[in-house]
């Protein structure tokens, strides 16, 4: 007789790790997306070059390789991270590189007229960015950010490769121990789907909040 409640409990523990990874990875991704995205439109050449290098590197190599580097190669440089830290770092930097292009695109999409109004009102570049450009750009970024967060959620499965006990890892454990494939994988299928759904809803709620009373900005 198989102890299914116990095995499902194991998968739920894994789900917690997946949620943790997704939330912390997304938080890091947002921070680096803004840093690199704004860096891409900086008026300083060096900053632009740095941001571009970061984005191209992380978009051009796979999350797989990045994760292995962070986990197995960084220790040689004297940096040892826990598996969770490694996972968050790799996921955050990887998805952040995609997010950076979203930030840049949205900032660019807020047109010349808004920028010129800021100059005519004598705002500094920083003030214009903070009070006029970014609040409007945010409503353009949110839908794509939602997609990125879901991509990140799906990406969390690769961390099982560095022995992090996320949902996929636990499903494999259950499968190995019970010999049953259907139940553990059907369970995580549903759980991944529910998590993605939660992200979609959350983002849509955020979007509605941000765009309240604001017609004609999204074209």
């Amino acid at each position, binding site marked *: 007789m198989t102890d299914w409640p116990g095995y499902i409990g194991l998968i739920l523990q894994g789900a917690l790790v997946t949620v943790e990874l997704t939330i912390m990875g997304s938080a890091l991704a947002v921070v680096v997306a803004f840093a690199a995205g704004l860096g891409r439109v900086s008026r300083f050449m060096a900053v632009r070059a740095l941001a571009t290098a970061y984005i191209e590197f992380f978009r051009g190599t796979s999350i797989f390789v990045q994760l292995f580097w962070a986990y197995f190669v960084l220790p040689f440089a004297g940096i040892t991270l826990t598996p969770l830290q490694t996972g968050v770092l790799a996921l955050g930097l990887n998805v952040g590189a995609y997010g950076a292009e979203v930030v840049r695109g949205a900032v660019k999409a807020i047109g010349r007229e808004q920028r010129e109004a800021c100059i*005519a009102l004598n705002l500094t570049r920083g003030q214009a960015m903070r009070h006029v450009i970014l609040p409007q750009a945010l409503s353009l970024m949110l839908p794509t950010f939602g997609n990125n967060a879901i991509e990140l959620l799906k990406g969390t499965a690769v961390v099982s490769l560095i022995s992090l006990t996320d949902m996929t890892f636990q499903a494999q454990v259950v499968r190995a121990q019970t010999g049953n494939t259907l139940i553990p994988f059907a369970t995580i299928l549903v759980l991944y789907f529910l998590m993605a759904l939660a992200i979609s809803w959350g983002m849509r709620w955020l979007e509605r909040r941000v765009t309240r009373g604001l017609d004609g900005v999204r074209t």
Partner: protein
Amino acid sequence: MAAPIIRIDSITKRYGPLTVLDGLSMEVLPGEKLALIGPSGSGKTTILRILMTLETISGGHIEVDGEQLYHMPRNGGLVPADERYLHRMREKIGMVFQHFNLFPHKCVLDNVTLAPMLTKGVAKAEAEKRAMELLDMVGMADKAKSMPAQLSGGQKQRVAIARALALSPKIMLFDEVTSALDPELVEEVLNVMRKLAAETDMTMLLVTHEMGFAHDFADRVLFFDRGKIVEEGKPDDIFRHPRQERTQTFLRKILAAGHRL
């Protein structure tokens, strides 16, 4: 006679191979109401944009209120102005745009208070009090909490005027502020500008295709063609007795197109 508040000294403006302004010089006296008229593409907008430092100039000098606009003194000579210098010079100048350029994510009141609070450190309560006075002047006080998307074009433009006035610039630039409006909304904006002209001693430069309004509003009218001032004078002289053939042709065309004088 007072010293000019704006002194444009043989400026040149090029866009690539296209020379839009070629050695243009002109002066504006403090408090003067100036109308800039002329055919499309003659460089009227370009002049206002240059004064607002939205463009760069390819040559020449501009002095505003006794100081260089695009150059700052250093080591006894002049060097191109840096951002901080421009920031200080922009305090003297405000601009109202053809397409209003209101901030769509801020309510009317916040549109007006944003710049005074950020650039002059005015406290919120004081900024709002002043903003309400200005909104009252343009007849928009009852819409203070509305979002720009809820307003008509004429209302948006009146808010944009209040927003520019909130910084109390010495010079105001108006670029075809009624030409994006439905005809029935033009008058409400022009009325605000008439009031402004009557009640303040601000220097105003106005680019317009509303010849009737230019006639009543301006102390002096400049007729531009291909980046040059072809003719200038008192409104009556320019509109009733233009001397240059190009001015006559332009006015005839405009009147034929149904504009009133």
